[in-house]
């Protein structure tokens, strides 16, 4: 058995990479939410000085990466690999950002699970001795996602109560071989799970089984319980999905309810911001983790957390062809310090 492997699908990193810096850029609506003080940049206009929302999204991703590098005086030449993904067809936000950055690039698609997918790979790259510094970044944009997956913005339709609001946001995380923490210590990679949900307006329910599956496997593989974590955060099952996932996990003998939150619930005020079930999109877990959670780890409010980004792997074509929605979730454990 591979020396770093634990149980079925978890790995324990032997040389845990440290998170050196993060940067987040969010749109105006996110900048009015409860986490507004934790983001680096809140845009006044979500076109970000560009001619289209796709261009704006790519710029957000690119600038988040640049900002994260600038914070620790890093030049692009010092970064070995750049892992990024987004929701747009052919992940254009990420590749077009990589075009400007000039860092060797792995483009990823994991829908909203892309943040932890990118961080998993970026961490393994460093842990395995293939890189000194890697960057993981993701983005999403309400308006570019809306036109690709749903209706034109000016179309007068109603959103059902189960629907989620795509977050306009981008986040970048710099990982390095040497640093003072927090550290990425465990990685549990998700399987694609599909329990037959077909309603594209209820993605929380489509992804909840995948999130529960990954969390349960992580706990079984490592022997941890909820007591070992200060916080377990999925991103983004939103309100309905979180409840369902918590129920499934409970039915399987683990009670994580008190530690369990979701990035889609944290980023918006669900009662006043008219987002229905909560936020979604790659940018949601990226901005909540990179903005809020990372700062809680640095100042010691949190010591040991698990982040599980969850993705709904559907496309407008698959929905029209009557396919159900496959979900995926990747978990990573992050610890403030390594003494234990």
């Amino acid at each position: 058995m591979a020396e770093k492997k634990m149980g079925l699908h978890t790995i324990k990193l032997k040389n845990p990479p440290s998170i050196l810096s993060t940067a987040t850029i969010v749109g105006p609506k996110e900048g009015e939410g409860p986490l507004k003080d934790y983001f680096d940049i809140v845009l006044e206009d979500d076109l970000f000085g560009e001619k289209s929302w796709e261009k704006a999204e790519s710029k957000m991703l690119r600038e988040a990466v640049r900002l994260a590098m600038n914070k620790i005086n890093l030049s692009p030449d010092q970064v070995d690999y750049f892992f990024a993904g987004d929701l747009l067809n052919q992940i254009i936000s990420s590749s077009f950002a990589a075009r400007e950055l000039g860092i060797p690039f792995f483009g990823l698609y994991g829908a909203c699970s892309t943040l932890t997918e990118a961080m998993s790979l970026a961490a393994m790259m460093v842990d395995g001795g293939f890189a000194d510094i890697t960057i993981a970044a993701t983005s999403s944009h309400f308006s570019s996602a809306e036109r690709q997956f749903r209706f034109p913005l000016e179309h007068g339709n109603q959103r059902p109560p189960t629907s989620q609001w795509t977050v306009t946001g981008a986040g970048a995380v710099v990982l390095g071989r040497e640093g003072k923490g927090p550290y990425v210590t465990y990685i549990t990679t998700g399987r694609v799970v599909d329990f037959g949900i077909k309603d594209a307006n209820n993605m929380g329910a489509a992804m909840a089984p995948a999130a529960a599956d990954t969390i349960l496997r992580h706990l079984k593989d490592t022997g941890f319980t909820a007591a070992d974590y200060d916080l377990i955060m999925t991103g983004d099952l939103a309100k309905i999905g979180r409840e369902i996932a918590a129920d499934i996990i409970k039915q399987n003998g683990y009670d994580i309810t008190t530690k369990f939150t979701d990035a889609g619930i944290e980023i918006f005020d669900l009662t006043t911001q008219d987002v229905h079930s909560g936020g979604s999109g790659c940018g949601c877990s990226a901005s909540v983790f990179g903005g809020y959670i990372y700062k809680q780890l640095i100042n010691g409010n949190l010591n040991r957390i698990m982040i599980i980004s969850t993705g709904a792997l559907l496309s407008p074509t698959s929905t029209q062809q009557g396919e159900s929605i496959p979900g995926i979730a990747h978990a990573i454990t992050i610890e403030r310090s390594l003494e234990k």
Partner: protein
Amino acid sequence: MMDYIWAFLVGGSICMIAQILMDKTNLTPARILVYFVTAGVILGAIGVYEPLVKLGKAGATVPLPGFGYSLAKGAIREVEKYGLIGAFTGGVKATSAGIAAAVFFGYIMALLFNPKTKN
């Protein structure tokens, strides 16, 4: 004044039926519109929609089933006048103003305005 009351009641009811269908069945707006237009054509053809138009006036013609009703009525009228070819000319002729206006104003509005993000 009665015009307005009946238009309100008939038009409002048609919209309310559509709303209940949308809430209960998860049908998207585009599907509802297709069903309602087609229903309008059929109801218009068998003469069921006509009394509703008499009663509700704009209340029955402004909603999309009224569009279907005009299509059917136009097709039948032209068949009466010109024979079989009327089936092809009648419907579009009767609804030509609405369709042409939608295309033309659609283009103009696209020239003039940009879409805005929702809050």
